[in-house]
């Protein structure tokens, strides 16, 4: 049986005979793709924007998240009258394959009623994008006006242009890279080892044991969260301030605010994320290397796309530093692609792409507006304001 299901958790495309062939050679047959859409598809079906989410994101970028009750992870960016304007564009966001917000992943129950666990095939960024292609096919959308995303979402954007370039009119990869660096693989490995070392992980079968590797996953999140921030932002926000106390405890309680903050980040993450999904998705990022897939020359990845690119990085992002974006831009130039590149001044580290960054918003409004004109879509409802014009 194949069909669409509506639920409080967005829409679900249920494909019982999907035949999604993965990079590791295996085939996913039973496949559920959880997604959400905003706005109206126009008559030409030419105004669709796909938003690709990051490692721990989901398909609720805008509006309330029905599972947590909190605002979507890109609520400042996506919505009526916002830079990604749902009054003007048909916006789609899909939970990645391997995720745990509704799409098929390691926590999904198989026909026999048991979750995949470690029987789930190792997935790649390419597989995530293949699944998104499948969704577009089912929604009968021939091509995307724009594909946009930050971090792992940016990797999917690049994969879209490299593997399905004929379906992409414009692309906005933000705070990302064409390959996961050695340092980034190292941080992911620390996180995975924290999960694997938790006795409650049970070799991935924690569901059967009615357990959950909460401590391991929390530590993984704590380590990762540090990489999303910057030294300057930590100093500004927390400094060496003490948490709920006047003096040091001479023990191992959370004396410092930063410790308390990280512990909170770890604990609250465990409530919304599956440990095995964390293993699989971090692995997908580690495996991403677009140049390696194209004979070692990154420019070769972009020879088949006519997409216009807007590459965005942030000055204080040390996880996906500007140097990665520059390497990408050079490859795009060498491929003769239409590319813009903006580095945004911010002390908020990698997470800046999720936060209120007026310069990023201006950049995206300007780029999308020009792309819309080139695509023959109506001009932006709200013009660029501020000092962009002299």
């Amino acid at each position, binding site marked *: 049986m194949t069909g669409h299901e509506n639920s409080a958790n967005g829409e679900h495309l249920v494909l019982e005979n999907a035949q999604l062939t993965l990079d590791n050679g295996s085939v996913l047959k039973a496949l559920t793709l959880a997604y959400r859409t905003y706005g109206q598809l126009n008559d030409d079906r030419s105004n669709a924007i796909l938003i690709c989410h990051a490692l721990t994101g989901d398909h609720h970028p805008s509006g309330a998240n029905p599972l947590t009750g909190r605002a979507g992870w890109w609520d400042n960016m996506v919505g009526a009258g916002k830079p990604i304007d749902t009054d003007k564009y048909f916006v789609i966001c899909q939970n990645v394959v391997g995720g745990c917000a509704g799409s098929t992943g390691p926590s999904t129950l198989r026909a026999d009623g048991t979750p995949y666990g470690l029987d789930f095939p190792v997935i790649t960024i390419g597989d995530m994008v293949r699944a998104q292609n499948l969704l577009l096919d089912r929604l009968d959308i021939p091509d995307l006006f724009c594909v946009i995303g930050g971090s792992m979402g940016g990797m999917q954007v690049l994969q879209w242009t490299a593997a399905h370039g004929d379906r992409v009119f414009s692309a906005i990869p933000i705070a990302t890279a064409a390959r996961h660096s050695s340092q980034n693989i190292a941080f992911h490995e620390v996180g995975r080892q924290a999960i694997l070392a938790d006795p409650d992980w049970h070799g991935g079968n924690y569901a059967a044991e009615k357990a959950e590797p909460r401590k391991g996953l929390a530590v993984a999140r704590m380590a990762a969260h540090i990489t999303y921030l910057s030294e300057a932002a930590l100093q500004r926000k927390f400094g060496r301030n003490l948490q709920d106390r006047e003096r040091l405890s001479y023990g191992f309680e959370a004396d410092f605010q930063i410790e308390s903050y990280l512990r909170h980040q770890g604990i609250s993450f465990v409530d919304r994320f599956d440990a095995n999904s964390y293993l699989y998705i971090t692995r997908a990022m580690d495996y991403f290397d677009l140049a390696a897939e194209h004979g070692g020359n990154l420019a070769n990845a972009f020879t088949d796309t006519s997409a216009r690119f807007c590459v965005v990085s942030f000055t204080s992002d040390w996880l996906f530093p500007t140097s990665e974006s520059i390497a990408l831009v050079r490859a795009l*130039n*060498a491929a003769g692609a239409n*590319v*813009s590149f*903006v580095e945004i001044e911010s002390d908020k580290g990698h997470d800046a792409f999720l936060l209120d960054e007026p310069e990023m918003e201006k*950049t995206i409004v300007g*780029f999308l507006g020009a792309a819309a004109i080139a695509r023959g879509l109506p001009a932006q409802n709200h013009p660029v304001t501020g000092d962009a014009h002299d």
Partner: protein
Amino acid sequence: MIDPRANANGNLAENRIDLKLIADLVEPQTRVLDIGCGNGQLMELLVNERGADARGLELSQQGVNACVARGLSVVQGNADTDLSYYPDQGFDTVILSQTLQATQRPKDVLIEMSRIGSRLIVSIPNFGHWKIRLDLALRGRMPETRALSASWYETANIHLCSMLDLIDLCDAVSLRVETCLTVTKGKVSRTSGRPSAWQNLTAELVVLELTR
């Protein structure tokens, strides 16, 4: 405004008459690379009036951000180091407007430009202008003019030259002068081919159209 060349060149609006002249030299509907595109004034002219497929390279991040917010295709980069990443003959016309004098290695920049495109348009403030000569002769100090208002220790213009100097350099890198436009007190005169020593004395600003 945030044009980085404002510091080097003083008031932009007054001194960028060359932008219109350059735009008029560009064939409609062609691919153009503007090196040192500032906040995108020229690119906007090229896109809107010449229907060009224009790309820009700009050193200052502020300039780049302003361009992209205006919907222009611009990347942050340095003319001295980043032109090598552009493919051979990827553009019809490559423009360098009042930027050559701010590069580290003007000769290499011209060579790279002629590799990237078959047609070059280069504009410079002319250091051979009589007022500048007189200024140096009479005062014995580095000239500061309306177009070159920064003091010698602050200016971004590290490789100033006269129009004849530039033409010598074009000869050295096998670039032929097709058209020479000179500007004096807002008045434009056009010469086919090489300009004269007299023009070198009277022109405040020069725009050269060059081919390989």
